[in-house]
C-alpha cells in the first residue's frame, strides 16, 4: 500500500486519539518503557483484555451460580438417563426445602418461587459469558496471550515440573521471581482447563437442556446419555467451577490479596522483593 493512503490516519490528532495515551489505552497492555521502569517499582502483569474479560466473567459466574442454585430449589433431585420426576427414584437429592409443593423434601414448608427471574438471569448471563469467552479466545489467540502466557512452556511440559511446583506449594516456599511476571505451570494448566474444558462442557450440558436446540442437534443430548444425565452433569460441572473459584481466591489471598487485586484491576504488580 502506498504511504500516502495512510497520510490521514497518520495525522497526529488521529494517532493521539487511537494511541494508548487516549481512548486506545483501553486496548493496550500496560507497557513500561525502560527509563520509567528504573524509577517505578511496578511491573506490568495483566493486559486490558485479561482484566476486562476477567471481571465480566466474575460477574457472569456469580449471576449464573446464584440463579442456578435458585433453579435447583424448584427440584433439588437429580437423575440419570433421559427422564426423571418425583415418581422415579432419584440418583441423589440435595437436602434442602423446595419451592414446589409436589417435591417430597422432608421439610414442612415450601420456599417462594423465584424461577422466573432466575431463569431469565441465567440465560442472559450465559449469553454475556459466551460473548466474553469468544472475545477472549479470539483476542487471546491473536495477541499470543494464550500461547505465551497460558500454554506451559516447553520446559514445563514434563511431569517433574508439576511435581516440583506442587512440592513448592506444600512447603509454602516463596514464589520464584519469574512467577511475578508469568504464571507457573499449575496456574497455566488450571486456567487452560477452566477456559477450554470446564466452560465449554458447562455450555454443552446447558445447551443439551434446551428442547429446541436438541431438536436441531439431537447428538448434543444423546452423547451425554439423555436429558437428566445432562442436567446432573451440568450440576457437577458447576460444582467443579465452585471448587476452582475457592482455590483461585484462596491462592490470591495467600499470595497477597491487595497486590493481586491491584494487578487484576490496574494491570500492574509490585515485584515481591520491593513489596512493603
Amino acid at each position: 500500500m502506498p504511504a500516502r493512503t495512510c497520510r490521514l490516519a497518520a495525522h497526529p490528532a488521529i494517532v493521539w486519539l487511537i494511541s494508548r495515551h487516549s481512548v486506545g489505552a483501553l486496548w493496550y497492555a500496560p507497557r513500561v518503557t525502560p527509563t520509567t521502569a528504573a524509577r517505578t517499582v511496578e511491573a506490568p502483569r495483566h493486559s486490558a483484555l485479561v482484566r476486562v474479560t476477567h471481571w465480566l466473567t466474575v460477574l457472569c459466574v456469580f449471576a449464573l451460580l446464584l440463579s442456578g442454585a435458585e433453579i435447583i430449589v424448584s427440584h433439588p433431585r437429580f437423575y440419570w438417563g433421559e427422564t426423571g420426576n418425583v415418581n422415579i427414584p432419584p440418583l441423589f437429592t440435595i437436602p434442602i426445602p423446595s419451592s414446589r409443593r409436589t417435591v417430597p423434601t422432608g421439610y414442612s414448608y415450601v420456599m417462594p418461587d423465584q424461577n422466573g427471574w432466575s431463569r431469565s438471569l441465567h440465560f442472559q448471563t450465559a449469553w454475556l459469558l459466551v460473548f466474553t469467552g469468544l472475545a477472549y479466545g479470539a483476542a487471546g489467540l491473536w495477541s499470543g496471550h494464550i500461547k505465551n502466557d497460558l500454554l506451559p512452556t516447553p520446559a514445563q511440559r514434563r511431569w517433574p515440573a508439576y511435581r516440583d511446583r506442587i512440592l513448592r506449594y506444600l512447603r509454602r516456599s516463596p514464589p520464584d521471581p519469574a512467577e511475578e511476571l508469568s504464571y507457573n505451570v499449575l496456574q497455566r494448566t488450571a486456567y487452560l482447563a477452566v477456559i477450554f474444558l470446564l466452560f465449554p462442557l458447562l455450555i454443552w450440558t446447558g445447551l443439551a437442556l434446551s428442547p429446541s436446540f436438541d431438536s436441531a442437534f439431537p447428538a448434543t443430548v444423546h452423547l451425554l446419555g439423555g436429558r437428566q444425565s445432562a442436567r446432573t452433569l451440568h450440576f457437577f460441572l458447576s460444582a467443579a467451577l465452585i471448587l476452582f473459584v475457592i482455590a483461585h481466591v484462596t491462592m490470591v489471598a495467600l499470595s497477597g490479596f491487595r497486590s493481586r487485586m491491584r494487578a487484576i484491576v490496574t494491570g500492574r504488580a509490585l515485584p515481591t522483593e520491593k513489596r512493603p
Partner: protein
Amino acid sequence: MKTLSRRKLITTGLSAAAGFTGLAVASRLSSRYGLIPPDSAGFYGPGETLTYAAQRLLTTHSLAREFSRGSISTMPFANEVPPLGADFKLHQAAGFSEWRLTVDGMVARPLSLSLSDLRHLSVRSQITEVACEEGWSYIAEWIGTPLIDVLLEAGILPQARYLVYFSIDRDWWESIDMADALHPQTLLTWGMNNGDLPVPFGGPLRMRLPRQLGYKSLKYIHHLTATDSLKRFGQGLGSAEPEAGYSWFAGI
C-alpha cells in the same frame, strides 16, 4: 509517542466496519423475519431476544426428538393443576361430549369443533418428552390432531403472525409464533398412551409443543385465536407466563 502501525489501523478499521455492518444486518433481519419476542422489553429483554432470534435462525424447521415405544415412562408425573371450576366439572360429568374448540381471529372460516370433529379431521401420534422448567421430565405417546390441520380447515389468513390459545381456566393462556403453530409436531392432543388424555395430564384437550418447555403445553384448551399482534392480549407480553416473570419463548 508510538506511531500507529498500518496493520493495527487496518485491523481496527476492518473490525469496526464489520461490527457496524453486523449490527445493521442483525437489526434489519430481526425486524423483517420476526426475531423479536413480545417480551423483549425490560432488563432481561436482550437475553430473551438473543435466545428467540438464535432459535428461529437455527431451529425453525427442526423436529423434536421422538422416542421408541419402549422408552415411554411407566411413571409419568402430571404436575398439580389449579382447582378446576364448575364449568369444567359439568363438562367432565358429561364425558366432555359438549366440549367445543372455537377457532376465530384472522381466519377465513371461524370454527367450533367438538372432540369428535377433531378426531375425524386428522390424527397423528408421537412419542415425545415433556420437560418442565423445574427440571423433571417424562416420555409419553401423545395422540391428537395437528394444529396445522385445524388452522388450514379454518383458512388461516397470511397476515396472521401469532396463535393465541386459551385454557378453560381464565388465568391460563399462551401464544406461539407461526413457526410453532404450523409445525407438524404441534398437536391438539386428546389421547395419551393408547387411551383418552386423562384430566390431570390436560384432558380432554391439551396443546403439545415438544420443542418447548412444559408450560407452553397448555391444558384444557377451548379457544384459539389467530392474530397479527399480541398487544391486545393481557399486558401485551404474549402470554400469562411473562406477566409472572417467565419467558414467552420456552424453547430456551
